[in-house]
């Protein structure tokens, strides 16, 4: 599986500028560099769960060490143990060969270990320079007087070193997420971090921003920083990692260099069994019906500039494009969240009007991108969430019957195989895959005919991903339609009958059958004709 940037430019000539030095700095496979951090046989037990069992990890200077595993495999526990956020039951951590005890995050900081978490922790109203030196401001000699000039100069120098030139006097919240991340890394480096832990750093970055991040990681690696890299994205691992460690159920199940092991083997190690990539082969031919949803020259205030497309009954239609190309905005327009300024949306042959509640009643469903913020009431139970879209349908007289609610909840949990002892469990306690099933169940109860899935498998384990894809296929086999927004190209190619590629709010092209390949999608998305 090649990485995105390489495939974007098959000739290898004009790739993203920041990456030019890449080939030069990548070290030979087996580096004799000294072991900076060594973890031996650590164990951690929570009530009822053995989070880590005898896990070993060796980290060398100038090495990117990828840690992979499904949610709950023990990745975060391992990281927490290294940065002193939890105390282990047993085991040993050595830094430069000397046993150390890391009991608090401050201990880790002193030893030069820093972690950049998914949730960034900059203080929004302080300047970039203030954030970099927060709590360690250079002083002028006069008590309590910060040397602002030195602080600004030092911050600018560190940021310049890792590839970000910006006004360090600007407020932190004026930066894009990608740049905030760079500032966090600069903060770690200013504390002389020699071990840098990056937890899913590309989760909220566009492809271009991710490329810049990779270039920065290459530079840090060349300077001898040891990097722990956690990601679900296989192609990033192939692009960056010098060594891969896979955890499953709190145990280390695999440790190898990328050249020794294939993507499939990694997946098998993570899941514990082979997982088929979504593929149309062997799938029964579905009868495709008439167009149910038609968009004609749709414009919105959110950036859609004349979208024309259609979805037929029994069809999975994909919506591809870069972040910001208007994919989610199409979904919001169809769902009645953003008003349509010009153009028409027809649903079942009649113009689609009314607000979101009316569109829900007419059979349109949205499985949103951010299920925690937009899809579920996390504090409520599974049973409650399963009814949120279908009060009007299940209880047409607005009289709530607990017995009916319970039976619907039982049926949905059984049908979707939600892993829970009962429906009274809070949804926030479920795994990503089971949460997603709850959202889908909510719409099944509303008898939806068109399901809009926005990044349906984001943040979901590989095993659960396959189940979600199977659910989508089951939906269209019953004559429903699916509109699937995704950044995962193999998933789009594997699942969809047709794919519309968006670029800057317009349809850049439509792909189907033999034309539907990952390369073709990328070319259209990037405007590489």
């Amino acid at each position, binding site marked *: 599986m090649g990485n995105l940037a390489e495939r974007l430019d098959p000739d290898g000539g004009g790739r993203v500028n920041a990456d030019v030095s890449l080939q030069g700095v990548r070290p030979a496979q087996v580096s004799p560099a000294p072991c900076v951090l060594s973890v031996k046989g650590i164990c951690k037990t929570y*009530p009822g769960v053995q989070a880590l069992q005898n896990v070993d990890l060796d980290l060398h200077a100038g090495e990117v060490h990828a840690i992979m595993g499904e949610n709950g495999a023990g990745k975060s526990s391992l990281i927490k143990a290294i940065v002193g956020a939890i105390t282990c039951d047993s085991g040993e951590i050595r830094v430069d060969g000397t046993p150390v005890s890391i009991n608090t995050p401050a201990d880790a900081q002193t030893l030069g270990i820093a972690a950049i978490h998914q949730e960034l922790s900059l203080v929004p109203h302080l300047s970039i320079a203030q954030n970099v030196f927060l709590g360690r401001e250079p002083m002028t000699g006069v008590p309590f007087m910060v040397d602002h000039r030195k602080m600004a100069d030092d911050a600018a120098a560190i940021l310049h070193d890792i590839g970000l030139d910006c006004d360090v006097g600007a407020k932190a919240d004026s930066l894009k997420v990608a740049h905030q991340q760079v500032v966090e890394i600069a903060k770690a480096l200013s504390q002389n971090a020699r071990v840098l832990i990056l937890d899913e750093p590309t989760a909220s970055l566009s492809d271009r921003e991710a490329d810049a991040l990779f270039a920065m990681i290459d530079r840090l690696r060349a300077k001898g920083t040891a990097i722990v890299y956690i990601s679900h994205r296989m192609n990033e691992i192939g692009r960056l990692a010098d060594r891969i460690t896979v955890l499953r159920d709190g145990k280390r199940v695999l440790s190898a260099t990328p050249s020794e092991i294939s993507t499939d083997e990694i997946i098998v190690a993570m899941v514990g069994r082979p997982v088929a990539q979504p593929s149309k082969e062997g799938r029964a031919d579905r009868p495709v019906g008439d167009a149910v949803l038609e968009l004609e020259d749709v414009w919105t205030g959110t950036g859609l500039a004349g979208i024309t497309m259609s979805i037929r009954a029994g069809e999975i239609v994909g919506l591809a494009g870069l972040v910001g190309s208007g994919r989610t905005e199409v979904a919001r327009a169809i*769902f009645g*969240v953003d008003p349509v300024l010009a153009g028409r949306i027809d649903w079942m042959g009649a113009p689609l009007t009314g*607000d*979101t*509640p009316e*569109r*829900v*009643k007419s059979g349109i469903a*949205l499985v*949103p991108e951010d299920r925690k*913020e*937009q*899809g*579920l*009431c*996390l*504090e*409520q139970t599974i049973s*409650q969430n399963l*009814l*949120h*879209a279908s*009060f*009007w349908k299940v*209880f047409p007289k*607005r*009289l*709530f019957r607990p017995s009916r609610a319970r039976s619907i909840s039982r049926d949905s949990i059984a049908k979707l195989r939600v892993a829970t*002892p*009962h429906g*009274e469990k809070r949804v926030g306690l479920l795994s990503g895959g089971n949460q997603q099933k709850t959202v889908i169940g*909510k719409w099944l109860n*509303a008898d939806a005919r068109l399901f809009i899935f926005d990044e349906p498998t984001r943040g979901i384990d590989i095993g659960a991903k396959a189940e979600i894809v199977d659910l989508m296929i089951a939906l269209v086999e019953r004559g429903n339609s699916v509109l699937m927004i995704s950044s995962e190209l193999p998933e789009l190619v594997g699942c969809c009958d047709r794919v519309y590629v968006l670029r800057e709010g317009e349809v850049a092209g439509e792909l189907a059958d033999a034309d539907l390949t990952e390369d073709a999608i990328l070319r259209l998305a990037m405007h590489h004709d």
Partner: protein
Amino acid sequence: MSEATRSGRDWHSAIDKLRGSEIESIFLRLAVLFVVGLFLTIATDTFLTQTNLVNLLRQASLMFLLAAGLTLVLIVGGIDLSVGANLALSACLTAGVYKATNSVPLAIATGLATGAAIGFVNSLLVAFLKLPPFLATFATLWVCQGLAFFYMSGSVIYGFPPEMRALGSGFWLGIPVPVILMTIILIFLTVFLRRSTIGHELYAIGSNATAARLSGIPVRRRLILVYVLSGLTAGFAGIVYLARVNSADAGVGEPLLLPVIAVVLIGGASLYGGRGSAIGTLSGALILTAVLNGMNLLAIDSNLQPMAAGLVVLLALALEAVSKKHQRKK
């Protein structure tokens, strides 16, 4: 699997379901109420007398009337600071209309309409202008308060006919009328929250308004309903208050605002939304009233009463936090 282990498992799962649920938190409150009552029964001769209990219930019922609508507002994750001022303005206008027309029905209708209208203004500010509820109702609080002071210009209106005063101080079958009104509203509100889908929608909105909207729940319409109901119960409470004290003046609302918020919070509603119940709010009203009543009976300096109310609120919130933490750990 043997029958015994199966029933054991069902039992565990039933306990599991109960934990952290609405039912658990209500039992907790009733237990607190019982302990307070028991203590006062032992510590004083006068607590467990008919006169005192009737008096206590009457005070609690007024609190409950004012807090009933506010409970709904907290369930959807909002707040209504204007209820006290609303009560004052509604009472004053009711009194004014009665004095001008001598018509009891017209006076009562005026009070209810005033309350509902203030609630409607709040709902427009919150649902359409998308103002934070705290700010929107903070502003309407002062507007209502100002209107009431201007309308009354320092005077007090008193002297109302018996049929109107009965609402506040009458008895029916030996039970104080406000207590009957409280019971009716309690039943209505409980059925509304538990047995109508709208009630369930309110909890969803309070739990996550975005998810509720994207599930097709008409969030705006529900917000309007909730704020109008909050205004309406405040207006109604104004009429009952007027009927009880047989006078109306512009300053009656202000001292009620903070206690009524305390009642709703003691009752288990959360300022973050998604929690709260009618029976909870009733227990909140009873607990707060019993504590204050007990302080009177024990001849504790009444200047200490606000502090006692504050401690009760803190205790309720702390119990909530502990039970939530326990629930999280599982």
